[in-house]
């Protein structure tokens, strides 16, 4: 409905100059924010204010601002991507906040995601997990016609549900063990549900899981916090499927 103005907000934010330095919270005041503005627009305004005051602006990751690239990654008032459901940080709007409120913003906190600066973390560990097997081993060219293998529509839809993962890392940030199981299981399900990906399903699951362990992500104790905070509603049933694939792979070793 009609936008209102939030006259005054306090922004308590994690400041850390680089990976090596020690971070701390700083609090800034910002005025006259429209409830129709997005959370990141509020951050832009705050940053321009800081620049004019001669303070180093707050570094945060973002790009598409449409909820699809997975770059934005703020931990707001104790929740990855903030107080709304099924949205990324960039889709969160200021109407979810009250005038006079103190908003606390932190980076993703996980051993495998070290801070680069302020709210920006290094998610290279996700890249490494996918490089360990998150693909179908085909080269360009020489593949059969796209309609050669019919695929059951429900399987294709389930595959798509899992493929919707944007690689943001909120699942890791939400998990008390910093487990990446939801992320890994989403890739494993996306490919295992399709005949093209099924061929390598077992080795894929095994390689990705061992890579995940190696990179310092924690184990899954089924707290389901990841599913609750995932902006793309990736289901934990994928984790069950991953566990099955993984077990079969280990048994057949």
């Amino acid at each position, binding site marked *: 409905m009609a936008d209102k103005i939030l006259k005054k907000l306090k922004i308590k934010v994690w400041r850390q100059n680089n990976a090596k330095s020690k971070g701390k919270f700083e609090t800034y005041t910002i005025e006259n924010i429209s409830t129709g503005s997005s959370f990141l627009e509020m951050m832009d305004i705050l940053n321009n204010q800081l*620049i004019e005051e001669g303070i180093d602006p707050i*570094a945060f990751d973002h*790009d598409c*601002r449409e909820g699809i690239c997975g770059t934005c990654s703020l931990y707001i008032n104790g929740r990855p991507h903030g107080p709304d459901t099924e949205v990324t940080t960039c889709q969160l*709007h200021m109407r979810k906040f009250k005038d006079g409120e103190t908003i606390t913003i932190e980076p993703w906190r996980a051993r495998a995601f070290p801070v680069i600066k302020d709210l920006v973390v290094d998610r290279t560990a996700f890249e490494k997990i996918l490089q360990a097997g*998150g693909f*179908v081993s085909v080269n*360009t060219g020489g*593949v059969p*016609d796209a309609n050669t293998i019919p695929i059951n529509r429900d399987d294709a839809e389930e595959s798509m549900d899992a493929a919707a993962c944007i690689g943001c890392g909120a699942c890791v940030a939400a998990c008390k063990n910093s487990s990446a199981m939801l992320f890994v299981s989403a890739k494993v399900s996306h490919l295992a549900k399709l005949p093209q990906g099924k061929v390598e399903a077992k080795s894929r699951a095994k390689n990705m899981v061992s890579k995940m362990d190696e990179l310092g992500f924690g184990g899954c104790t089924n707290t389901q916090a990841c599913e609750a905070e995932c902006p793309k509603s990736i289901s934990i049933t994928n984790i069950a499927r991953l566990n099955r694939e993984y077990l079969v792979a280990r048994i057949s070793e």
Partner: protein
Amino acid sequence: MSILESKIPAGPLAEKWNNHKSAIKVVSPANKRKLEIIVVGTGLGGASAAASLAELGYNVKAFCYQDSPRRAHSIAAQGGINAAKNYQNDNDSVFRLFYDTIKGGDYRAREANVYRLAEVSPNIIDQCVAQGVPFGREYGGLLDNRSFGGVLVSRTFYARGQTGQQLLIGAYQALNRQISKGNVEMFNRHEMLDVVKIDGKARGIIARDMVSGEIKRFGAHAVVVATGGYGNVFFLSTNAMGSNGSAAWQCYKQGALMSNPCFVQIHPTCIPVHGDQQSKLTLMSESLRNDGRVWVPKKKEDAVKLQKGEIRANDIPDEDRDFYLERRYPSYGNLVPRDVASRAAKERCDEGFGVNGEGKAVFLDFKYSIERLGKDVIEARYGNLFQMYEKITDVDPYKEPMMIYPAIHYSMGGTWVDYNLMTTVPGLYSIGEANFSDHGANRLGASALMQGLADGYFILPYTIGDYLADEIMTPKIDVKAPEFDAAERAVSGRIEKLFNIKGSKPVDYFHKKLGQTMWDNVGMARNAEGLKKAITDIKEIRAEFWKDVRIPGELNNLNPELEKAGRVADFLDIGELMARDALDRNESCGGHFREESATEEGEAKRNDEKFTYVSCWEYKGEGEEPTLHKEDLVFENVKLTQRSYK
């Protein structure tokens, strides 16, 4: 001889690509292992190229400015990808896709390139399915198709409303596989700041490590630029915040010609600007126009009341609503092409009939289709879009009409390339949205994804061999060469210069000012006076920028303001060239509308006699006027006609 040798092969249209492939040189596997290629950008164009080249055996280095290749802006494409598969048995064909693309582009693209694009399009779908792209399917298990604007057949493949995401993930997986094999070295969070030439040939790049701030040198036997479009010159657009024209602009400064820069696409269905705090615009899929009716009030007093918030859309009875697209274009109605729909919305709003506080929005109303089909059907078709709209605007589009307004979306213009996708700098290639090649003055929906993947999977991997076959004796490029010294000095010098201005205003201040000038004068409707004004305005903004911009932080650290400053410095130059190009092209075609060249009813009027060419601008040095070259377009297979959607 002109510097513009398009290298279009001889022979009949349908045989050109095959003949060309047989005629060009091939590099042996043993020699490929000795050659290095740099690919800048990992969107659909760059990721597919980097993976395919690595599979062939070349040593590839790939770069992107995000923290992962998967985040390239291709990820945001919603609607779908075209291919001439004729799976629907509706008489689609390579020729029909070719024809639709040429006509949709208002006859300002090369026949041979567009035909090749249509010809390889079916292979793209095969490739994506083999990679595990979960395209939409029918109950029988075969692939489903959608229809898209401006065509009569159903040839668009899709993965829900996330086609770009799924295609990019497919290419990213192929890229990851090559990274894991050590065939591609990936540089995330690295921004290319210059191309390095040795003896006139592209031999590498200078890039800034965005985390450490270090300026680094990278050498290669060829450089491929796949860095996307420059729509952010307008500040507000549907592009990602980091999308930029800088890499292409450095190519231009190094001698690559820039073609048709004034051709940008304005998408009619975006969520309107909501005040002065806005940072970017969100696209609402074109498919909504299938079931939504576009209108504004008939009476100005109703519009005024809407603007003041005294009444709401539903207070206006049907007889007082002006369905202006249905009125003006009875045969296409709400489904006229993007450029026509955008201009019509602007015309109504300029006349004072806009429906939001700013007077810059029109209604897209689903009331009628909900009455006709039921809410369930509409929800099944557009549920996710309606939800996204509600999250952003807090208005429920099942109960009240959406508000929409046109926004900058895509750049048809870009780096000039020949049939091999090589620029006028030997060894420097440009693919995807960054080049100018296939869409003429207007791109059809679902054709950008097709082009990016065609270039990267099926065209460049062949054509680059023709050049590299003559480079097999060239040893590994030495990045200690004096040309690299000079390039690095220039890049560092520019960064330090920007950083040391220490003025009073943040980068955004200048970007917004540039965007406003561009939107007002180089936007949906252009005229000579406005374009000249834009050129003068931009010069002033540029002077102020270089005197008064303030970049905080440190040079040797992550510094988003510094990154933005470099991009905005280039946008200022790109904007000026766009205005010049628009001034030169005194005709209306596709997305480029010159008020001086309109019919009596205010429709676009092309001038084929004078303007059937690609404009190609050559850089002449800082502050110098660029030189205009022209590549004449020859049409041997289609007849030029005036588009009509009445």
